[in-house]
């Protein structure tokens, strides 16, 4: 018995991910998958949310209604059913319409559906952020003769993002938690991988605790990063201190 095995089986527990190289590799790959899925969806949902929030304020009434409809649909329906709808529903529909060659992986569909779900939440929070930009700033910018896109890029976005940061943090935490729904359509993220491991090794409690710790660290790390970012981006003369 080597040292790792002794550590892994300490106290009667059986942490196979500590000493079994196969399980450890699986678990680490699962963590990597969850992280990369979360990062990819973060980028797409933040960009998408920002664009929709700007369109909401710039464009006319039909666009507004469409965006409102999009947001309330994705906010008010279960994300699990959304994923099912995209993977089983749209997936088979596309495969039938475009022939057998059109196969998109479960991961891609999970990404699409999580992007839309979190994108809807982000749209809502950026919309509030854009609304918080003082009217006077925009008038001042117009008076200086700045072009509309310069106003948006240099004035609206920096201020809106700052105002939206606290609720954006909540949404991104929601995103990391929502990646676990990928389990339902066999996306090899950490929960799915852990399920495989505990099915093989019958160590449910050990894997559960490992999962809790992993998610807690991932989300704690994200919250810490976002807090740091928030402090870095504080404007002098704004906020409570």
């Amino acid at each position, binding site marked *: 018995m080597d040292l790792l095995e002794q550590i892994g089986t300490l106290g009667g527990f059986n942490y196979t991910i500590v000493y079994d190289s196969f399980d450890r590799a699986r678990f680490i790959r699962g963590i990597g998958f969850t992280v990369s899925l979360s990062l990819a969806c973060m980028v797409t949902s933040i960009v998408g949310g920002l664009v929709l929030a700007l369109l909401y304020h710039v464009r006319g009434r039909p666009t507004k209604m469409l965006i409102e409809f999009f947001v309330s*649909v994705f*906010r*008010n329906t279960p994300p699990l059913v959304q994923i099912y709808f995209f993977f089983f529903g749209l997936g*088979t529909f596309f495969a039938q319409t475009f022939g057998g060659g059109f196969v998109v992986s479960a991961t891609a569909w999970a990404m699409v559906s999580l992007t839309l779900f979190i994108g809807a939440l982000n749209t809502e929070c950026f919309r509030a952020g854009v609304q918080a930009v003082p009217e006077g700033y925009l008038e001042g910018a117009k008076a200086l003769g700045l072009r509309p896109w310069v106003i948006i890029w240099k004035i609206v976005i920096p201020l809106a993002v700052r105002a939206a940061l606290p609720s954006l943090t909540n949404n991104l935490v929601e995103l990391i938690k929502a990646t676990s*729904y990928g389990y339902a359509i066999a996306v090899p993220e950490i929960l799915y991988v852990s399920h495989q491991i505990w099915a093989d090794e019958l160590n449910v409690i050990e894997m*559960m605790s490992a999962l*809790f710790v992993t*998610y*807690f660290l991932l989300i704690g790390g994200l919250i810490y990063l976002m807090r740091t970012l928030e402090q870095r981006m504080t404007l002098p003369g704004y906020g409570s201190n």
Partner: protein
Amino acid sequence: MNAIQPSDPSLWKIVRPATFIFGATAVLYLTGYIGGFDWLRSHSLMLGALSEWTPSLAQGFLLDIWLTIASGMIGTVLGVIIGYGSLSKSEYLRRVIWLCIQFLRNTPGLVFLFAVAFATPYQFDIGGTTIPFPPEAKVIFCFSLKISANIAEIVRGAVNATPVGQWEAGITIGLSRFKIFRLIILPQCLPRMVPPWMNIMALFFSVVPIASLIGIEDAVTYAGLAISSEDTSTLIMPFYLYVLTWFFATAYILQEATRFLEKRNEEKTS
């Protein structure tokens, strides 16, 4: 602009979209029922199958609603107690409660549900009596804990927003800390707490379907059953869309009601 209106239109505004959706569903179902499934089936496979499976889906959907309400009630009571605890004078207690709240809020519901479902026994034997712990109870246990952590945060936020003078006034008339909380602080905070409380309920209503992954027969389970027994892939999308519509209609009422209450609160304070 201040034209006097014959009746308060806001409630109707809230209910209208939902009634439309439910009405359309009812018409769909009734035409399927009256016209006979065979007739509809021959004319439209999709409508026939949807109306045929509507009772089962409704049964599962009611279970979803019931699970949400049950865990919401338990979670609210628990959350208020935890929220009171997080305002305690003892630094130690506050830290422990803070850690518990963070743990409950920042771990995925699915992982928590799996932990409760797979790592707890089916029944407890305490002194000869067996207390069963069926899957439904496990789901309620799991969600009420998760809801309570969110409620506790709301309570803490609302209490911190009340002036300290209220507490001091309570002390001067000789009330205990808990009595001040219950008789003076909580009633004041109530209107401010209701909208976020409803948000939490709406949020968890759309999370509850994950219970289908541990074998609860809710709307999603029945949708899956319907799809696999109808055996045509053309029905997959309509069925999930149908379930999504049901959830949307219900959660939409909650969302609009929340907005209405928020607006009324703002009007009152301004």
